[in-house]
């Protein structure tokens, strides 16, 4: 029970910080809107649904990367990560709370991005929304984990996309598949499996990422 309380307190800290500083979310919203505009001009003529749903996923992935890159920046700048590691809670709680906070930002960005996509390009189906929900979990779980790794290196946020994109390929396969086929069950199941598998791996090994 105290684990849940710890996670809640840590996630609340991140959300509160964002509410006061407003660093990440406006940037993500502007970015995703700008990406859609760029896509419109990058695809001459009227692109098909197949093409634009691929682009939707590129936009989501890169918007998520923007948020994930920011996730550990405050900890780095203020040196709070040492404090968090020393706090009398399970270290995996830090990862879980950070993932939940990032998930909240990403979902908030998508609440704007999906209607915008529908306005600019094509209608968004129920399967796409389900795929977005499932993919978000995987993106935030793995991305937050790798963000904590990247922030420990000399290259800092530069490394995050390099570490993250190969691991995100299965997410893109599952998500794009779910958005374009008639019966998306198989793809959604695959996304759920990915989330489960990587969440367990991240949860079990986060200790080693922050421990000296």
């Amino acid at each position: 029970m105290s684990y849940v309380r710890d996670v809640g307190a840590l996630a609340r800290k991140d959300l509160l910080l964002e509410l006061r500083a407003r660093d990440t979310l406006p940037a993500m919203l502007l970015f995703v809107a700008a990406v859609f505009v760029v896509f419109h001009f990058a695809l001459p003529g009227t692109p098909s649904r197949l093409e634009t749903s691929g682009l939707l996923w590129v936009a989501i992935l890169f918007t998520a990367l923007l948020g994930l890159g920011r996730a550990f920046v405050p900890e780095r700048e203020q040196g709070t990560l040492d404090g968090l590691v020393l706090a009398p809670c399970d270290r995996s709680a830090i990862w879980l709370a950070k993932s939940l906070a990032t998930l909240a930002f990403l979902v908030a960005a998508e609440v704007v991005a999906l209607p915008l996509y529908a306005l600019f390009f094509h209608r968004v189906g129920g399967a796409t929304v389900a795929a977005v929900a499932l993919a978000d979990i995987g993106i935030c779980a793995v991305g937050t984990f790798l963000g904590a790794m990247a922030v420990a290196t000399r290259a800092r946020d530069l490394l995050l996309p390099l570490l993250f994109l190969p691991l995100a390929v299965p997410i893109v396969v599952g998500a794009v598949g779910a958005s374009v086929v008639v019966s998306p069950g198989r793809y959604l199941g695959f996304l759920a499996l990915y989330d489960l598998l990587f969440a367990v791996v991240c949860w079990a090994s986060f200790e080693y990422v922050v421990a000296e």
Partner: protein
Amino acid sequence: MGRTFRIPLPALAVSSLVLVTTALAFVFFVAPDDANQGFSQRIFYFHVSIAITAYACFAGGAWNAFRHLWKRDPRADLASYVCVHQGLIFGTLVLLTGSIWAKISWGHWWLWSEDQLVLFLVLFLFYCAYFMLRFSLDPGPQRANLSAVYALFGVVLIPVSFAAIRLAKGLIHPVLFTRHGPNFGGWILVTYCVAQTAMLVLAYTLYRLELGGKRLDLRLRDLREVLA
């Protein structure tokens, strides 16, 4: 901890030389021509055995990473890195030979519908990122930990990507091993086994050589620090 027996490096070098030569001789003179693809199909003996060797290297890297995290074995971190390094070298060869074979038999240098090749490309990028990560950290326990965790992600990624690519596939890659055992017999099987053994022994020799060199390097650095 008791000292385990290790095959001396010169013996390994000689045996990999002999095995690779034998494999070459078998591939060019003993194995029969393929009914459909003719002479060019012989690249298969190298392509497949190199691919399996690369997977073995990545598995070795993950195993050593696991040993580092679990047992805190001080030698495991370097061993894991060297395994991944060898895996990447063999992985490059897989992409090259696969590309050549694809050009000869299907007329294209690269085919996205060919799932094993795409899987390998994803893995290749993943392990390249491993190197970026490792070289962006200062030597020490943190580098060892982060590298080990990332190498372990690789073994999770392999089956997941494989499933993903199978989901999105149009399969034209020849499948050699089915549930009923290997899809070939006779001299083809013998040649394949020789080539596979040769590649594995070669990879192990290179691994031992690199590991020995790296350890010597570390000892030299330690000694220099003591003297300075």
